[in-house]
């Protein structure tokens, strides 16, 4: 049995409503059906908690269109322990998995003990059980942890319900904001508001800082902002343009682009000694660096062949390799978490779409069908890509799951949202 004590680390939110909300456009090709049974409650526990937790878990699991649920009103029974659980009640309703649980009071201080079980109906076995102790104030976080466990058990992938998203909002002509929120759009925080453009947010691996580009002083400048204190530091690279910062996997340096005299090249910037090391040196445009998960290579965009294409460079040997050849626009590449594939923006007949490619193959697979898609970011488990796109003059975020090809969108209520950046997992 897993026992888990939750520390109450709640972020204070600047805004009370969420700007982003996920809308499922198309579910996975092979949807599994899950029954989320309202959790039972012990005498003395506030009645709502049982239903709240199962509803939170349900919302999380359905977030990206990967599963369908069984309506509560169709359930034949509401078991809260294994003794009351009968597989046939769920089999007849075409359910693939059932989640049950129980909320017990630990003490008068508001601590709860929440036990939960997951059953595979087709195989007629319990595949997961666990227990969490936490405060009443942490129901949302507790639900996320349980959701992660269930997701991991069913899909074999890491759960991502406690990850976050950073993005840039342009609410009117000269208001730019960099924001972060939970992955479901809740608990939005505005990190910085400016009258000048903000670009390229990127999370530090420990999720404590965000690097981004701001034009507040009239030119493109890189800032690192601490999320807890709100402190902002310019890294003072002092080129004509300083941009495209991305954290190394160990968090000790940034790969970034500096154009000293009008020739953008890739540099490594050490955060501790503030020194720049040149990585590329070419008269063409070199930009949009991103690290391989093992830190050994950096993928980047270069127009050295006459059109933007993706290359990778070994940070030690400086050996370069061209990665894309098909099409006249392949840019802003990122590695998958396993390092074996890349995703990027692929220009094709005047359309700009999100594409993926295995490093071992030449074949480019286009994932999206709108025409102005950019800034793709991948979930830490490598299964979901969120990207920016446009409808009329409003920018919104789109999403796709790679295994089931579910599609969803994150429309913004006011203005345009762009440049999503998925946070790492907390470890």
């Amino acid at each position: 049995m897993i026992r888990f004590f939750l520390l109450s680390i709640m972020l204070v939110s600047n805004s009370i409503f969420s700007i982003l909300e996920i809308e499922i456009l198309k579910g996975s090709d092979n949807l599994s059906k899950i029954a989320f049974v309202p959790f039972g409650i012990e005498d003395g526990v506030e009645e709502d908690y049982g239903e709240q937790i199962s509803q939170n878990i349900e919302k999380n699991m359905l977030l990206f269109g990967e599963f369908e649920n069984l309506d509560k009103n169709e359930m034949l029974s509401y078991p809260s322990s294994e003794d009351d659980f009968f597989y046939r009640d769920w089999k007849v309703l075409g359910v693939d998995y059932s989640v049950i649980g129980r909320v017990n009071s630990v003490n008068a201080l508001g601590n709860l003990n929440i036990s939960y079980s997951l059953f595979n109906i087709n195989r007629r076995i319990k595949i997961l059980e666990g227990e969490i102790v936490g405060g009443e104030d942490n129901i949302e976080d507790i639900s996320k942890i349980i959701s992660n466990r269930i997701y991991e058990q069913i899909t074999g992938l890491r759960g991502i319900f406690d990850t976050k998203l950073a993005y840039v909002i342009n609410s009117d002509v000269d208001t730019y904001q960099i924001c972060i929120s939970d992955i479901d759009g809740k608990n939005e925080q505005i990190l910085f508001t400016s009258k000048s453009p903000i670009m390229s947010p990127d999370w530090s691996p420990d999720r404590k800082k965000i690097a981004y580009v701001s034009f507040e002083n009239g030119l493109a400048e890189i800032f690192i902002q601490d999320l807890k204190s709100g402190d902002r530091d310019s890294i003072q690279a002092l080129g004509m343009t300083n941009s495209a910062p991305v954290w190394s996997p160990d968090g000790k340096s940034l790969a970034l682009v500096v154009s000293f005299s009008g020739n953008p090249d890739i540099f490594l910037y050490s955060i501790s000694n503030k020194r720049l090391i040149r990585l590329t040196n070419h008269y063409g445009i070199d930009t949009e660096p991103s690290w391989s998960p093992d830190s050994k290579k950096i993928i980047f965009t270069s127009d050295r062949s006459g059109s933007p294409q993706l290359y990778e460079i070994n940070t030690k040997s400086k050996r370069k390799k061209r990665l894309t050849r098909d099409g006249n626009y392949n840019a802003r590449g990122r590695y998958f978490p396993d390092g074996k594939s890349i995703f990027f923006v692929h220009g094709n007949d005047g359309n700009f779409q999100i594409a993926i490619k295995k490093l071992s193959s030449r074949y480019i697979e286009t994932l999206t069908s709108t025409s102005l898609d950019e800034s793709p970011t991948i979930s830490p488990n490598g299964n979901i890509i969120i990207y920016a796109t446009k409808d009329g003059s409003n920018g919104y975020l789109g999403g796709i799951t790679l295994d089931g090809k579910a599609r969803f969108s994150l429309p913004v209520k006011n203005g345009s949202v762009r440049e999503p950046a998925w946070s790492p997992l907390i470890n």
Partner: protein
Amino acid sequence: MRRLFMEPIGIFILAMLCQVYSCASNVSDSVERIQYASVAGEEYLQGDKLDTNLDDKVYFDFDKSTLDAEDKNLLEQYLPAIKKAKIVRLEGHCDERGTREYNLALGERRALEVRDFLVVKGVSGKKIRVVSFGEEKPLKSASNEKAWAENRRVEISLY
């Protein structure tokens, strides 16, 4: 491992380009007061924006930074005013297609192409300031060929 150290040209251009711009509150119709401040915040000077009766933009093809005959012709007409100005500000822009960071670099390329043309024509490079906004500040927000063509531009302002 090669360590970056600013080449002399880098230092020279850096010194020039450290100047940054921010609008002061005092703005009238024909004269825009602007303030220059260095990134380090050491140096401040003020100037008036000069009015010319010429189109203040040159336009580019998609993913290109080369000047065509029409652009060069416009810049030629501009030359007398440019030579009189204390500061020439060149602001490079792109359309929304393609990626943001690549467009930031492309906007810079476009502004530099104009700078190089002016320098060849005898304008002192010292008074030219170059900045790129990539695709971040479109003139037209629509997503069609006409809007894109207007957004792929270098704006020239004289002070």
